[in-house]
């Protein structure tokens, strides 16, 4: 495989399926009242809550809406750096 087609990333998926995926995602946002800004606020609030339970990688965290056939899911990918030790009563 020559370098050019590698750079273009053509082997893995057809441009049609990329288009479909991108379209689905953009429509999830368009159709709901969830703006990227709102999603970001939600992410920050979530991180605040979660970080009082465990040490997480704030920069590596991703919060997105995703859609498969019929349902929409809120997907959060939050890398955990360290789980806090068990403390009394917890």
């Amino acid at each position, binding site marked *: 495989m020559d370098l050019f087609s590698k750079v273009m990333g053509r082997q893995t998926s*057809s441009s*049609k*399926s990329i*288009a479909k995926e991108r*379209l*689905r995602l953009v*429509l999830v946002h*368009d*159709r709901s009242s969830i703006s990227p800004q709102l999603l970001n606020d939600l992410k920050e609030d979530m991180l605040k809550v979660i970080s009082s339970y465990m040490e997480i990688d704030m920069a590596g965290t991703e919060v997105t809406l995703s859609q498969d056939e019929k349902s929409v899911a809120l997907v959060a990918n939050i890398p955990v750096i360290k789980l806090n030790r068990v403390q009394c009563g917890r």
Partner: protein
Amino acid sequence: MGQVIVITSGKGGVGKTTTSANIGTGLAAIGNKVVLVDTDIGLRNLDVVLGLENRIVYDLVDVTHGNCRLKQALIKDKRFENLCLLPAAQTKDKSAVEPEQMKELCGKLKEEFDYVIIDCPAGIEMGFKNAIAGADKAVVVTTPEISAVRDADRIIGLLEAAELRNPTLIVNRIRPRMVKNGDMMDINDMIDILAIELLGVVPEDEKIVISTNRGEPAVLDMNSWAGQAYRNIAKRITGENVPLVSLEVEDGLLGKLKRILGFNN
């Protein structure tokens, strides 16, 4: 009482005017009384696509402002005497007409004509609101590109909010070879994502350019793929059942696409 059908899309340049001209001419060719209304005020085009640009005296704004009678502004087509055009004003702006006036106008037109086809401007502002105000049905045109489909989705939402329910979809400028190579979204992808009923599929066709050059809609060209697609769409609008896909699967996707387009029927 006739039916008012608005041809809309959100995005510009996807083929609303081409579709309006071809559906209108196609419906007239099979014996219906049709009037085409160009609501793209300031960017009039339907007249050129139909080859009627030299006959314009009055326009839509003249009618709604009472500068002339409705009959005086209707331009008779060269080919079919049961086909008329009400041209858009070229020098006014979109706010020169209001939705209430469009409703009234459409009401009058559908007493006279079997089909009132409204060519909608791009966008979701005043021009769009005017175009849909008097409509009974909506046809959404898109091309197989993300931006066009996205705008179509937005339009479908706005049509629903305006109580124009169950719009139908025309996918324009499909290129079978690109679909086959996985480089263009196919019809099923789009109707799936938009959750809308398909009215027809129109292929990319050089004959559209040629026919626009001549001012003769491709629907009258028996050798044009796109023309064939528009003939089928016109029939479907009249309620005739022209199948979209034949169940007998033929040689691969190209054969199937030809069937979708209504060839080999």
